[in-house]
């Protein structure tokens, strides 16, 4: 599996500033609209789907990471956006800690298998606190891409 097949480097956001979960998700989805990963008209439905999932239980699962995700019909296979916040965002996390890494995942409804595989793969990469720390301090997109590529090689 290669995350970089699905994560366009234009969808890496560094130094995101948002005061809470709602603002962060809205900002990320706006970015995806701007980069034409989703159509503007689909934004409300996408945001609604993400929040419906959050209401069932926060995807900020601890370790300063959140995986907001939704299965929607308006995207082709999988769209990922990786957002990094240096200060941390109040994301209603299960361990009450602020979130520094948000990996937002949108997948087409027909891609259930790929969706779960990608979630597992992202978890496999991000369970490494060293990587989280390095991502947090990354200054440019190519640095993030290089870190992710390295980590993928390390975990195989």
């Amino acid at each position: 599996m290669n995350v970089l097949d699905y994560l366009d480097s234009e969808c890496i956001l560094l130094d995101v500033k948002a005061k809470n979960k709602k603002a962060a998700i809205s900002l990320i989805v706006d970015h995806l609209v701007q980069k034409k990963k989703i159509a503007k008209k689909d934004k409300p439905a996408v945001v609604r789907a993400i929040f419906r999932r959050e209401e069932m239980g926060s995807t900020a699962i601890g370790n300063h990471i959140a995986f907001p995700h939704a299965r929607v019909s308006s995207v082709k296979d999988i769209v990922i956006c990786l957002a990094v916040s240096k200060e941390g965002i109040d994301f209603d996390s299960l361990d009450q800690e602020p979130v520094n890494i948000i990996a937002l995942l949108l997948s087409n409804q027909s891609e259930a298998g790929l969706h779960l595989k990608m979630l597992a793969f992202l978890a496999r990469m991000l369970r490494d606190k060293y990587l989280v720390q390095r991502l947090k301090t990354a200054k440019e997109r190519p640095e993030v891409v290089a870190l992710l590529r390295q980590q993928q090689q390390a975990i195989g």
Partner: protein
Amino acid sequence: MERLEEQITVNKEHGLHARPATIFVQLANKFNSSIRLDKAGEAVDGKSIIAILSLGVNKGMQVNLIVEGSDSEEAMQELKKFLEAEDD
């Protein structure tokens, strides 16, 4: 300290994705016992959501649940029941 280990088939509709992994860890954290989940030789901390997620356990896969501690029997019983149940 009693150590228990059982092979369990995960029957959750979509495997151990984010929500069931979270519930599993919430259940696991009720117990004092240390809990590990092993899939094909890769063992992870059963009290960490990201660790459980990273195993990528799909429906029908077999895992070994390893529980060790003073309340290992109750922990094994409850966690096994959860993993074997179909609904998530």
